[in-house]
């Protein structure tokens, strides 16, 4: 499903004359199979988000190779990436990233709109998903009229609506209380089981890591395969 080989990435910082590079990822290797839930842990600033950004195509690697769904995506153009993301990925962001001027319903519907799905079909699918996620009652609310947990659920629904192959989640429960967190984790688990969606999650949270099949740790820019503090799969 996801295959990463010898990935290197460093940030370029500073203005003219005082340029320098900050190496973040050094020779990262990673393999994730279909239907797996993999959690990534590591200290703050270790490069977890950077890895996810590379896999999502938001930034381009200095060297190395990324293969997703048997396609070499390392050197895709911006347009090709956009298409690929829409086709295969769902995203759950740490701070939800809902569009404030769209209602919950429209936010969930957005990926289908971007894909060019006909309106009727779009609305039907959104309706069903919102029901299953328990948000029908709030579908006409704007993001600022929803609680944090509700917003997070809307963003999860938005990640799911296109029935993607892979969902990338950066701290999906970061801003939730423990009870809501439990609900969200249960939802992820169900989706993984019922729809065979692959999850790649970044987390600081033991509870989250606990539902993962594997936990990977990034340390010093390197990936430590299947080792780490939270290594106690289900």
């Amino acid at each position, binding site marked *: 499903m996801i295959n990463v080989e010898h990935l290197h990435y460093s940030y370029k910082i500073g203005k003219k004359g005082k340029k320098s590079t900050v190496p973040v990822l050094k020779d990262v290797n990673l393999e994730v199979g279909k239907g797996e839930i993999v959690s990534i842990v590591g200290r703050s600033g270790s490069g977890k988000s950077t890895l996810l950004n590379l896999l999502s195509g938001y930034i381009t690697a200095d060297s190395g190779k990324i293969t997703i769904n048997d396609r070499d995506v390392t050197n895709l153009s911006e347009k090709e990436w*956009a*298409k690929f993301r829409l086709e295969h990925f769902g*995203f759950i962001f740490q701070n939800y990233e809902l569009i404030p001027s769209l209602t919950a319903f429209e936010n969930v519907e957005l990926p289908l709109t971007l894909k060019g799905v*006909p309106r009727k079909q779009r609305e039907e699918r959104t309706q069903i998903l919102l029901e299953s996620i328990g948000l029908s009652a709030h579908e006409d609310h704007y993001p600022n009229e929803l609680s944090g947990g509700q917003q997070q659920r809307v963003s999860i629904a938005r990640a799911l609506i296109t029935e993607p192959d892979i969902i990338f989640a950066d701290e999906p429960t970061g801003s939730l209380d423990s009870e809501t967190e439990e609900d969200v984790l249960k939802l992820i688990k169900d989706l993984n089981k019922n729809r065979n969606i692959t999850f790649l999650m970044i987390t600081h949270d033991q509870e989250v890591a606990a539902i993962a099949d594997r936990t990977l740790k990034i340390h010093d820019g390197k990936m430590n395969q299947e080792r780490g503090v939270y290594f106690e799969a289900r």
Partner: protein
Amino acid sequence: MKLVDQLGFVKRNMKKNKLRIFMTVLATTMGCSFLIVLASIGFGLQNSLMEEASSHQPLTQITVNGKMIDETYHEVTEEDLATIGATENVSAVVPQSRIYSHSEVTLEDEFRASVEGIITNFEAEKNSNFRLSEGEFPENENEIIVGYHLHEVLNKFDRTTLEYITTGDSNEELVSYDSNLLGKIVTFSFMDDSSETVFTDEYKIVGIADEPARDWVQDRSVYIGDERREDLLSLAGQEDFYNNVTAHVASVDQTEGVTNALKEEGFMVYSISEELRGINVFFTAFKAGLIFVGTIAVLIASIGIFNTMTMAVTERTHEIGIMKALGANPSVIKRMFLFESASIGLLGSLFGVAIAYGVSIAANFFIPLILEATTNSEGIDITFSYIPLQLVLIATGISVTVACISGFRPAAKATNVNVLSALRREA
């Protein structure tokens, strides 16, 4: 992303900031209507001038004079008529000869008028679109067509003294015939140099010419068929030549070609359209100048569009970041912003056109009134402002194009929004 959905987003975004969009559209409206009103003066004045010019002689008519060969003038000959008639696009050649001697028409030995005798070919007149107000073209020798005002100039006279009779009242006006001449038998006669009547014959009036285009012209012509032209001309003591030959074409745009062709044949020609060509060149330049000045107003409005769009992009950076992160095509995002600025341009020009029409109508109504009042003259009939469809299209084209151009940079900026920095900038 479907076009309807893109337009839906554009509409939603525009509604979100109504006041700002309204002000921008207002500026565009003002620029566009200024452009149209300004240029419409050029179109209006040109129209008035053309109308005025073509009332002297139809634009489809070309007057053909003889040839200048070795510095001697040769009149138009029978042969020349055939050459002219054979020229491409010439639909008719009308050979007229005027009788220069004093000519008269008398009716029922009671009314008399001095007239202008014209010998012509009715077949050719018919083909040249000679218009009758009543009756039809003569079919045989003793039938004639008379000018529109003949009945007015036919005045009562005393059979013995041959003097005109006046009304008994203090006005001392002549008594006109003043009723329909169609079908009447009249006597046409003319004199020679020594005032001897040399020709008299009776004719039946079968047609009455159309009213002349210009109000002050009094048409007292008598058109006689050319069956006896040689006799008539020799009786009048005139040489046998045509003194008014006109070639006619079907449409105005053929006039120039025919004029040139006839010139090449060596004829000395004159047509109103030739005269107007210089004027038209001037007006084309004049209108272009007015449109240019008007465009500056649209350009000023475009600064507003640029600002509005730049603000819109800045405001929506976060939203754009989210859409790109989810997989929105960058060119779709660009297109949505271009649509938005194009809509501003389009709305502006729609309102602009409407307002320009209003201003134009008002100007055409009030300016003559003001001129009449200040100059104490009456019946000023000039179109000051005329807005042809062409001008509407030009102005709309300019406004929308300028709007698109000013939206271009903001739209490109939107396309280049960096996903990560947009998302990092907290909502």
